[in-house]
């Protein structure tokens, strides 16, 4: 079996009186694509942020290639440098061009020399078909274009894994297509990804495993076929019905 890239064991995240993540354990192996879906407010974003150590989990452990990130004394910046993150609301740096956004980490995290950083940033932009827009500022780009730059920014430094938090849900329906195409390309190249998404046709096509998430925890896991034909829990069944209906409407 291939190596486990990212893993969490018995992960909890508790805000004052809300348990956002409840005792979650999961593993992602090299080249695997896992897809998390579930109702709004169920804690999907919180889980992803914990995995990237963008918020500190309350309890439990996160491992990146076997290295525990939740121990005290770990250099989290180094760890994050190996984890790509794509945000639902994109969060491009407003003051930098598309190229500048992608270059930033190459220059100041990987500390590449200027021209090499530029070359790699350009090729990352090419990967998402945004090379023509390299010198545009985020405010001059459409939502779909912005998100493709967001993806290029996350993958430019060749992270071990990319975590994507609903990369298309903030976009107008007609713009989701281009972002989904980009993700499909990444999937073909064997990129290891953990994606939160409700794009069901896409899920069916690329996901090795789907994870139904509700009330902070994993309710059911299985292949896309499993979920599309007969989910075993009542909650998953209902949720799938709604999703499929919505997809048809669109």
């Amino acid at each position, binding site marked *: 079996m291939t190596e486990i890239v990212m893993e969490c064991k018995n992960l909890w995240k508790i805000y004052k009186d809300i348990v956002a993540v409840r005792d979650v354990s999961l593993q992602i192996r090299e080249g695997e694509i896992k897809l998390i879906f579930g109702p709004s407010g169920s804690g999907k974003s919180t889980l992803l942020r914990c995995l990237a150590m*963008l918020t500190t989990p309350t309890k439990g452990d996160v491992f990146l290639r076997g290295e525990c990130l939740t121990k005290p004394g770990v250099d989290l910046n180094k*760890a*994050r440098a190996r984890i790509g*993150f794509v*945000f639902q609301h994109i*969060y491009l740096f407003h003051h930098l061009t598309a190229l500048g956004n992608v270059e*930033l980490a190459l220059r*100041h*995290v990987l500390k590449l020399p200027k021209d090499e950083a530029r070359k790699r940033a350009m090729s990352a932009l090419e990967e998402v078909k945004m090379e023509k827009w390299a010198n545009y500022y985020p405010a001059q780009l459409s939502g779909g274009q912005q998100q493709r730059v967001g993806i290029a920014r996350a993958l430019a430094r060749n992270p071990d894994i990319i975590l994507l938090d609903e990369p298309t849900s903030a976009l107008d329906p007609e713009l989701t297509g281009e972002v989904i195409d980009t993700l499909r390309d990444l999937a073909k190249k064997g990129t290891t990804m953990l994606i939160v998404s409700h794009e069901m046709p896409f899920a069916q096509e690329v996901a090795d495993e789907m994870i139904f998430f509700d009330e902070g925890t994993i309710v059911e896991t299985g292949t896309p076929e499993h979920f599309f034909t007969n989910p075993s829990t009542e909650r998953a069944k209902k949720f799938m019905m709604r999703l499929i209906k919505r997809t048809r409407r669109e």
Partner: protein
Amino acid sequence: MDALQQLALILNGVTSTITVSIVSFFIGIFVGLPLSFLRVYGTKSAQILIDAFEKFFRGVPELVLLLMFYFGVGLYFPFPFKNVFFTANFVLGLRSAANQSQIFRGAIRGIGDEQMMAAMSLGLSKVKSVLYVMLPQVIIYSTPGLGSEYALLIKDSSYAYLIGVVDIMAYAVWIRKATMDTFTPYVISAFLYILLTFPIATFLDRWGSRKKKQLGLERR
């Protein structure tokens, strides 16, 4: 003395007015900027200290501070507080730091945690995230506010004449006393102050607002 002669004399004070304002302005940036980030990202005790500093320098009249440091602290530490130029810049500089810290803090809030999180997600350290992602945006975002702060400093530098800085105000008072002309020197000085404040403050306001809009820095 006719108005032109008076103007020529008063112009001698412009250098002092500008110097005090500009030096204080930069003290304000160099102290206020770190304070604003410490206030947002620092420890609880740092926050309390900074709040106290801001309260004091923003709540007490500039004139009271000038008199206190020049006459009072200067009694115990003649060097450097008996130097009028030093004390004027010290007081107005720290006052401006307190103001600017608030301006920058508003900018940090306005730009939002998301930018910081996105920067950290790339593996940038907290310090680097502040340096490469927050700082440039904070400066652009704050430009209109800094314009008003600059205008405020030009005007408030006039208090410094009361401890002996020879600025526009000092010349105007001196001319009034020497010539008994109670009108012209004040009209001239009012005109000069407006000339020093209005164009630059307006420019910074316009430029900053336009740039903010262009870059989409205002949160939707």
